């Protein structure tokens, strides 16, 4: 599609109660503009993803950078809000609607929640007291019943991603943990313990999206797909989210002319440990129900054939909802540019970003967005 992510940037991630959301945006945007060697006046549209951002959160931050007078479009798609903004920016450039677009994501979670997120009380799930970790816990229990997934398998996701985060200076948690430590942490929603749940975080991410320029090293978009969930009811065989991720991934592979075996590095939605296992199954890294084998074999750790969440993932980096998709994109871009430091995946050429947002009762997810990127040299 001749679209490139010319530059990316992020803030630090973590609980940053004393800072203004605009500060996160400034940090991410300035880094992305510098990496893209782009000037403020070249930005001719902005898409920003946020879930709980105050009205005007984008304009409030951007006018201070001199980004004024251009269309600014704020989107909400639960945890996939930032990835939705990225997808819309990519699509806008590919359709020649705009030339150079800023994709942004921001969230200040510490203004909203002290503990677990709970779905909207206008839904049955939220009104019935089902905190969001329990929605994922339901998937974990089902997987344990169907496929013999063990508590240790679940813990391996957290162990792997926390080990990766040691090398990510922007991550919220950078301490390695053992299986025993993960399982001994406080139970949140059986079988998920505290260390299997992503922490509440604040932060922002940004990407400058434009046309691919010939003769330059670029990170180009091979495909970008956004879908909302189908009906999820008594006829649904799969756990919540599986069918949506699988159908989005299939469309993304088809558009790219690639398959799961071609992915060298992946950032996926590990808001809870079971989420990564369901996702690696759904995007085709493992046969359905066999995602635990990837973990046991070291297939998805840095150093293995197809590392997943080298940044530490949502579990370690933190999950500022609207910012997460852009944080994932930044990680994949750095990986494809060979700039990921101690967590670098050797020789990574093709990478995949997957974000899954949910919370609405009766459907398989509010949104899933998948972007496949390739690093190319002239």
């Amino acid at each position: 599609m001749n679209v490139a992510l010319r530059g990316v940037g992020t803030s630090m991630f973590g609980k940053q109660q004393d800072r203004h959301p605009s500060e996160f945006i400034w940090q991410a945007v300035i880094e992305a503009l510098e990496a893209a060697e782009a000037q403020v006046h070249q930005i001719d549209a902005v898409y920003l993803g946020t879930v709980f951002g105050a009205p005007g959160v984008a304009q409030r931050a951007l006018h201070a950078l001199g980004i004024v007078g251009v269309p600014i479009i704020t989107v909400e798609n639960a945890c996939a809000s930032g990835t939705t903004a990225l997808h819309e920016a990519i699509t806008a450039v590919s359709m020649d609607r705009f030339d150079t677009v800023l994709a942004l994501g921001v969230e200040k979670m510490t203004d909203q929640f002290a503990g677990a997120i709970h779905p909207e009380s206008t839904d049955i799930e939220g009104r019935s007291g089902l905190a969001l970790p329990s929605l994922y816990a339901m998937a974990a229990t089902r997987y344990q019943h169907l496929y013999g997934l063990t508590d240790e398998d679940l813990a391996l996701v957290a162990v792997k991603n926390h080990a990766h985060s040691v090398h990510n200076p922007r991550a919220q948690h950078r301490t390695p943990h053992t299986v025993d430590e993960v399982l001994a942490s406080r139970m949140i929603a059986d079988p998920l313990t505290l260390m299997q749940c992503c922490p509440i975080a604040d932060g922002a991410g940004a990407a400058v999206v434009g046309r691919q320029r010939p003769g330059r090293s670029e990170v180009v978009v091979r495909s970008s797909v956004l879908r909302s969930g189908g009906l999820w009811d008594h006829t649904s065989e799969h756990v919540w989210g599986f069918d949506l991720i699988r159908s989005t991934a299939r469309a993304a592979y088809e558009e790219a002319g690639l398959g799961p075996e071609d992915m060298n590095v992946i950032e996926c939605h590990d808001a809870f440990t079971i989420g990564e296992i369901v996702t690696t199954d759904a995007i085709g890294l493992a046969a359905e129900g066999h995602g635990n084998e990837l973990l046991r074999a070291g297939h998805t750790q840095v150093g293995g054939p197809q590392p997943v969440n080298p940044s530490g993932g949502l579990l370690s980096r933190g999950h500022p909802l609207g910012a997460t998709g852009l944080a994932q994109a930044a990680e994949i871009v750095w990986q494809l540019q060979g700039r990921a430091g101690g967590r670098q995946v050797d020789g990574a050429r093709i990478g995949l970003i997957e974000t899954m947002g949910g919370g609405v009762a009766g459907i398989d997810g509010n949104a899933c967005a998948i972007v496949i990127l390739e690093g190319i040299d002239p």
Partner: protein
Amino acid sequence: MTTTPDPRPVAEMIAGTVLLHGWRCVDCRHPLLWSTPRCPRCGGTVEASSFGPEGVVWSSTVVRVPVPGRTPPYAMAYVDLDDGPRVLAHVDGPAERVAVGSRVRLLEQGIHGDVVVTEVGV
């Protein structure tokens, strides 16, 4: 809390049996827990129906974190009602995960207004 109408289904004792109020498509018989303008599967007209009193546990968990207005821990399950929809329910009894595949029966709603089930034969 919201002033939006409570979205949870209502249980009612009918002739000694607890059933859930819901809706069903006149054309394709798709069961629904909430009123919709059209059947989301086929676009047909929906009519009031009732479901239960028994079903099978599809999955379960125990919520151990505080949620506004609730005191953890409490057991919850997705239950596929016989010939009816999948419903989110609280499980009566100790705060333990009820096994997937267990048969459960609807109980009358408690003070919270939740759908409540109990294991059959326990």
